[in-house]
């Protein structure tokens, strides 16, 4: 017998697992349960049409409209941040332009007491979760490493060393589980990061300890200059899940509705004690890796252009507009909200941050060592002499 494309007919995040090799009349096998759908789940196509899916219901209009607003604000954040880099107000910005559906879905599927573990590219997700935008941009402006309190919005610092944060996510979930708390953790990484050993160790730990972590890979087809085909030759990144004994699913990462539905289901399942899951979102990095990058060296603009019609915003606008959920008035209100966020960013970044050199020694340890006291004194002495 064969695996049909219709393996999709069985994989969903709600069903209980059976050991591999059991016949299908006894319920789904491990393969059925853990292998991803044959095609990325799509609920709203590029032209704004709804596509029915047995397993993943379309979120209701209100939810979509509210998320759509965040999408528009997210795009504005990306645009504004890029502009601020050009104006020299920030050193660097890794834009998620084109990936905003992933960003927004990651933020909104979580409850207040859940945790989000973002990467450097997930500024929009972090801001969408509620964190003060200026705190988020501290890292890129360069006045400190992380500028917000991770506990306030249960949002970890944005991670730079690739895939390392996935393990932290597992630890946070594990601690919560041991205390009997109902916390779900959503951990983000990119397609490139899936090659790191820490990705492997994190998924395995999550599965073995059966902790409520949803791993969301934003497969944007590039790791700086390296295309996906040089990163993996697996049928899909979601196919890695079965190797850890968890379900994997793939989803159109530019389809906000599908992102909300699939991620939402994975989060619910994790919260209900169903354990971890791996979700691969198919999307595309529309802009350079960061402003320091030169994509013309490794990809044709025509490749990028192919993704323009798949933009997450336009299709949602069409879909919601067709249903008359999105009126011109509403559009204008949303544009206003986006402008407001942009001006917060501009105002914040146009004012010079206060720098206190003494801070250098304050947070290395809870209490300064005698070595650091000496070094702090040396610097203070230098500065006082300069000042004099």
């Amino acid at each position: 017998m064969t695996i049909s494309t219709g393996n999709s007919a069985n994989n969903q995040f709600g069903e209980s697992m059976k050991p591999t090799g059991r016949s299908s009349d006894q319920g789904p096998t491990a393969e059925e349960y853990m292998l991803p759908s044959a095609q990325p789940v799509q609920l709203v196509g590029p032209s704004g049409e709804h596509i029915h899916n047995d397993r993943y219901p379309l979120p209701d209009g209100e939810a979509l409209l509210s998320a759509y607003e965040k999408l528009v604000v997210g795009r504005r954040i990306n645009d504004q941040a890029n502009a601020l880099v050009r104006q020299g107000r920030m050193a660097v910005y890794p834009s998620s332009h084109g990936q905003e559906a992933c960003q927004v879905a990651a933020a909104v599927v979580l409850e207040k007491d859940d945790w989000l573990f973002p990467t450097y590219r997930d500024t929009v997700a972090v801001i969408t979760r509620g964190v003060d935008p200026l705190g988020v941009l501290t890292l890129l402006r360069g006045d400190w490493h992380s500028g917000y309190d991770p506990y306030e919005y249960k949002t970890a610092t944005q991670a730079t060393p690739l895939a390392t944060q996935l393990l932290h996510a597992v630890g946070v979930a594990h601690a919560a589980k041991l205390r009997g708390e109902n916390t779900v953790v959503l951990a983000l990484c990119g397609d490139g990061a899936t090659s790191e050993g820490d990705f492997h160790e994190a998924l395995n730990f999550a599965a073995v300890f059966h902790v409520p972590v949803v791993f969301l890979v934003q497969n944007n087809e590039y790791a700086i200059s390296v295309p996906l085909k040089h990163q993996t030759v697996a049928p899909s990144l979601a196919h890695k899940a079965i190797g850890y004994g968890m379900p994997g699913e793939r989803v159109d990462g530019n389809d906000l509705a599908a992102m909300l539905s699939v991620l939402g289901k994975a989060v619910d399942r994790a919260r209900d004690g169903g354990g971890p899951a791996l979700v691969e979102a198919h999307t595309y990095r529309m802009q350079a890796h960061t402003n320091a990058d030169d994509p013309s060296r490794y990809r044709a603009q025509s490749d990028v252009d192919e993704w323009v019609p798949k933009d997450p915003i336009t299709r949602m606008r069409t879909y919601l507009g067709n249903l008359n959920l999105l009126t011109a008035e509403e559009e204008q209100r949303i544009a206003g909200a986006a402008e407001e966020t942009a001006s917060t960013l501009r105002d914040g970044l146009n004012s010079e941050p206060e720098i206190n050199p003494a801070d250098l020694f304050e947070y290395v340890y809870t209490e300064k060592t005698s070595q650091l006291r000496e070094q702090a004194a040396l610097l203070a002495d230098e500065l006082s002499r300069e000042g004099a």
Partner: protein
Amino acid sequence: MTDTAVRSGSAEKAAGTTKTGLQPLTFAKALNTALADAMEADPSVIIFGEDVGPLGGVFRITDGLTARFGEERCFDTPLAESGIMGMAVGMAMNGMIPVVEMQFDAFAYPAFEQVVSHVAKMPNRTKGKVKLPLVMRIPYAGGIGGVEHHCDSSESYYVHTPGLTVLAPATVRDAYLMLRDAIRFPDPVVFLEPKKLYWTKETLDLDELRKEADDAATAGSTVGRAVVARSGTDATLIAYGPSVPTALAAAEAAAAEGRSLEVIDVRSLVPFDDETVTASVRRTGRAVVIAEAPGFASVAAEIVARVQERCFNSLAAPVRRVTGFDIPYPAPKLEHFFLPSVDRILDTVDELQWEDA
């Protein structure tokens, strides 16, 4: 591979110990008791690593803890050191105090990125908003006839990394007190256990030790404090961990020859106790630093550098060191050529420009 652990005596099978009064205690049992007492005192202390559960660790330091505290508080992980450290980071972020075991020194290397880029930096990165109260226990160094990759003195990698606190007990008493202090410490601690001392014994009163560990006046006092392990007047031997007994033996031998050597047990590599070390060397005017790790850019190098920076005008001779050679740790049948020995220490002391030489 081939762990070099020994079966623990059955008398020591229970986690911790309830016996009172003076009793002979091994270094290993002192650590085991410290873990049990810490778990008893604070429910957020949890233990995990490779083989730390039912087996009790290949050195039996976690012996009996799963039985006593349950699988949720002392458990085995999949075999992945970066995974262990990374998960510890997350747990420490979220209210736990993880005390993890790396099975041997060289098997902590897969966790290096987690240690350097996260464990050491997280509090700093977040301006102290995220604290990481965790302990990374590492059975370390040689002298036990272990095969390759089981005997590295890896302390220099950790002490060079700002943000880490690095402790290395050399006595049974300190094994208990320092591990208790490490677990209570608000910042991440790398806790180095000299493998070859696991089976050394001291006669101690555990209740007294516990009192000392819990007393507000003394709790935490081992961090950042060196101790004078033996007083002397002619020169100072500065050692830590597995080298302390060797330094003491050298001082004993020197005494027989009429030379009075002071021995300092550094204990706390970071923070370093400049005061105690400097006071001694200023008094004796001569110093030899002893450590098992290859000397180049090592803890010993640091101590030599800072002693000469701070005591220059008191020095009658250059500060010297006796360290492991700058070679990979040798195979068992050759390790005795490598390790700092009493003779090598005494030879070095002899070279300290004595007026009568």
